[in-house]
């Protein structure tokens, strides 16, 4: 449908000249259809190629870099342009970072999930874009100064000829550069040549985020717009049977009550009237889902009784366990979790006969755009989807259900509408982090782990590999964190039993490992105890094949002086994970205070490969620790008779300032390709805490959130 063509040199020149004197450049990234070619974009945005970066250099030297990913606190509007600007040797003070609208192809994959904004193809593509622009500017400079390219260097937005003391600013060269061919494979810097990457340049959006000027989805204001909310089925997977809307219509300010696919939209002059209207609606919901949390636990327990599909197998764990003199066995469990993004789901839509405009706080801009196209029947190019700031993402905003609500409501009322879910609607209509269980068995001998098995029971989540013993195949996300365990164990078996409980599930920050790593790393501690080996030593022994992990573990042990003295009344525990390209080890120090676990200190060491912005990395790791602690101490969504029990922050609690431990973060210096930063520090903090609780109280926590027995709570 879109007009894709590889540009030859002549076409490029023509389009370059059309760019109004400036240089416009886009670039594809490895793995895309046009792996290593470069192209440009016409100024009106008509697409001629599939780039994932879009650079505009104006003749006054100002540089605009579009950010195709969505910002949810991970700082992409700063870090992605930094990568381009560094390779380009641009003057950072002249860079403007612009949030890109959704586009089917222009910016590559815009889905912002899996800690993938930098790592993977993005990093190389952005570097190539910057490097290509730089080479073109050098070539233009060589022509202008009539010197060979080899005598030129670039620095901070200028091409410099040292010998003659002459230099030209990038702006002065922009038009000439636009006439030149785009280099096929520009030379990239070596890491020691980076000037911006790895430095704490001021983030572009700190100021608007402290003045209230940053526009989140909920802050969008369109002339003439109405405000709406959606009453949704109380029963998971349920539907509307009957409603009486008279009372809702009687609420002052309510204008429309309309049925949409997901429930009943109440449209009003302001959000509060819409909320009041929705509360006044009398709806009868029906649904056949009647399970409660206890039934779901029973269901998963039954699944643990028989063998599942094999997810990973080395040696012969069955035989080794059968032959072992003694085995350690334990069953672990984690509950459903809500995302509870700080900004509830919302979207603003304006649907007209020939076009649709959206303002969406989405991690999935292309999904928002295609959803609107599908619902309105408009061609995709007639749908403009603006990406606002996101008040947290957590994976929740990768689904377009809130976009559907806005588009359907806007179509029904014939004008611009903002749909905002109340906190209660948001919490009860989530796609929850799955509840799951693992039954472990292990055998230690001579201080070493000889055999290990883990049977995972839980719902599938996304990618399922077909086939396999036990039927139904292995769901990769459901076993992630177990299968990806890096310990060298001679006999190892992981199998998976699919649970088909009807609770909607979705990606939740760090996904599989969020629960699985808690279970694995706690059980590893149980095995260390059985082996009579220090938990740190026990892990180090099994990481011989993973020097980076071993190093991170040693660093964190050093930071905390593991093995040294621990203050009276405190206990310490350790945990480690490799997740989404990042390696993170944590040590937690806890006490039990008035019957509750209190976390005082956390030491965190990480290897995330080459880092782009140290301040962002530190913030993401520290923030992830808060996420993990919230999950460990409080996180639980319970189901009763097919309904979600929790509704707001009073019964779905968050870690607050008074519960915040002192956190020390150390990121090891690394020249490896960038790994993930936004998620890998989530999974291992819960087991670090529960292992610390064990060290202090002798009580093994096998189920989250942590609930101490009376003995442990009272200090025995």
């Amino acid at each position, binding site marked *: 449908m879109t007009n894709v063509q590889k540009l030859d040199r002549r076409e490029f020149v023509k389009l370059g000249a059309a760019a109004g004197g400036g240089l416009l450049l886009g670039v594809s990234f490895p793995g895309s259809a046009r792996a290593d070619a470069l192209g440009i974009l016409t100024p009106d945005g008509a697409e001629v190629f599939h780039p994932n970066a879009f650079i505009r250099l104006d003749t006054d030297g100002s540089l605009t870099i579009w950010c195709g990913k969505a910002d949810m606190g991970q700082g992409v509007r700063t870090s992605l342009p930094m990568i381009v600007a560094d390779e380009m040797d641009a003057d950072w003070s002249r860079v403007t970072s612009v949030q890109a609208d959704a586009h089917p192809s222009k910016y590559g994959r815009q889905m912002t999930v899996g800690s993938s904004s930098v790592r993977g193809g993005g990093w190389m593509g952005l570097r190539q874009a910057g490097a290509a622009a730089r080479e073109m500017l050098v070539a233009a400079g060589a022509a202008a100064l009539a010197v060979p390219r080899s005598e030129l260097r670039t620095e901070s937005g200028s091409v410099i000829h040292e010998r003659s003391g002459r230099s030209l600013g990038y702006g002065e060269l922009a038009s000439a550069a636009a006439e030149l061919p785009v280099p096929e494979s520009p030379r990239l810097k070596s890491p020691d040549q980076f000037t911006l990457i790895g430095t704490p340049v001021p983030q572009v959006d700190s100021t608007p985020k402290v003045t209230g000027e940053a526009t989140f989805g909920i802050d969008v*204001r369109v002339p003439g717009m109405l405000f709406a909310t959606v009453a949704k089925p109380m029963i998971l997977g349920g539907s509307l049977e009957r409603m009486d809307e008279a009372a809702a219509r009687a609420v002052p300010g309510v204008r429309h009550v309309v049925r949409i696919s997901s429930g009943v939209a109440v449209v009003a002059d302001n*959000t509060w009237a819409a909320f009041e209207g929705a509360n006044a609606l009398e709806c009868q919901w029906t649904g056949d889902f009647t399970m409660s949390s206890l039934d779901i636990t029973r269901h998963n327990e039954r699944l643990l009784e028989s063998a599942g599909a094999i997810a990973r197998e080395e040696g012969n764990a069955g035989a080794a366990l059968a032959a072992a003199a003694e085995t350690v066995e334990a069953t672990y469990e984690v509950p459903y979790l809500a995302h509870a993004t700080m900004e509830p789901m919302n979207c603003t839509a304006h649907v007209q006969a020939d076009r649709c405009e959206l303002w969406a706080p989405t991690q999935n801009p292309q999904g928002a755009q295609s959803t609107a196209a599908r619902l309105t029947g408009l061609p995709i190019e007639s749908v403009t989807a603006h990406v606002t700031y996101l008040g947290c993402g957590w994976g929740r905003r990768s689904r377009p259900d809130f976009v559907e609500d806005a588009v359907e409501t806007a179509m029904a009322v014939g004008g611009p509408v903002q749909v905002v879910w109340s906190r209660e609607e948001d919490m009860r209509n989530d796609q929850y982090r799955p509840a799951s269980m693992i039954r472990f068995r292990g055998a230690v001998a001579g201080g070493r782990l000889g055999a290990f098995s883990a049977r995972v029971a839980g719902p599938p989540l996304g990618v399922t590999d077909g086939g396999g013993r036990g039927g139904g195949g292995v769901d990769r996300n459901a076993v992630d964190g177990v299968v990806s365990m890096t310990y060298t164990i001679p006999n190892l078996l992981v199998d998976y039993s699919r649970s088909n409980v009807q609770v909607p599930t979705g990606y939740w920050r760090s996904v599989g490992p969020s629960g699985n790593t808690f279970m694995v790393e706690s059980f590893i501690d149980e095995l260390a105890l059985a082996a009579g080996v220090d938990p740190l030593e026990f892990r180090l022994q099994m990481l011989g094949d993973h020097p980076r992990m071993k190093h991170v573990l040693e660093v964190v042990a050093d930071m905390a002086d593991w093995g040294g003295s621990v203050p009276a009344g405190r206990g310490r525990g350790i945990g480690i994970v490799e997740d989404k390209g990042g390696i993170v080890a944590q040590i937690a120090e806890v006490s039990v205070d008035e019957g509750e676990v209190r976390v005082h200190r956390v030491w965190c060491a990480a290897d995330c490969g080459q880092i782009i912005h140290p301040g962002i990395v530190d913030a993401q790791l520290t923030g992830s620790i808060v996420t993990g602690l919230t999950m460990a101490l409080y996180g639980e969504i319970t189901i009763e008779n097919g309904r979600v029990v929790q509704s707001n922050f009073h019964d779905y609690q968050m870690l607050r300032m008074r519960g*915040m431990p002192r956190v020390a973060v150390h990121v090891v210096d690394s020249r490896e390709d960038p790994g993930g930063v936004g998620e890998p520090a989530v999974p291992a903090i819960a087991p670090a805490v529960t292992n610390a609780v064990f060290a202090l109280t002798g009580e093994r926590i096998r189920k989250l959130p942590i609930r101490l027995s009376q003995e442990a709570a009272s200090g025995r």
Partner: protein
Amino acid sequence: MPTYAIRVNGERHQVEAPAEMPLLWVLRDLIGLTGTKYGCGRSQCGACTVQLDGSPVRSCGLRISRVGDRSITTIEGVSVGGLNAVQRAWVAAEVPQCGYCQPGQVMAATALLTENPNPTDADIDEAMSGNICRCGTYQRIRQAIHTAAEEG
């Protein structure tokens, strides 16, 4: 519908609203000051924090009829001509992640420092624990409050 005259950031506004309408929605949807955020609607999260005669209040829990002639300060009016000391410290420490809770955090911290120019960690725990930050920026918030206190 009753009409209320309220003072927001030094300006007078006439608003027509039901008596029970929370100040939060008056600010956001009637006056158009969207810096104050909705997070929970039941005084649990602090995203909607504004100041009433200098004291922090949850605007989602305050009906318009109860505001009277007290002066309301929102994030848009908390500093005049540039950033205030708290905001400067916030930017210097790069506190915000997603940023959604930050207007409420800044309003709470500014009120704290006005009342107590030299807060201890325990004072900060006390004053700031009503403000949830889902991104987990607490450590930098604490640090930034101390910085702002030092700079006075």
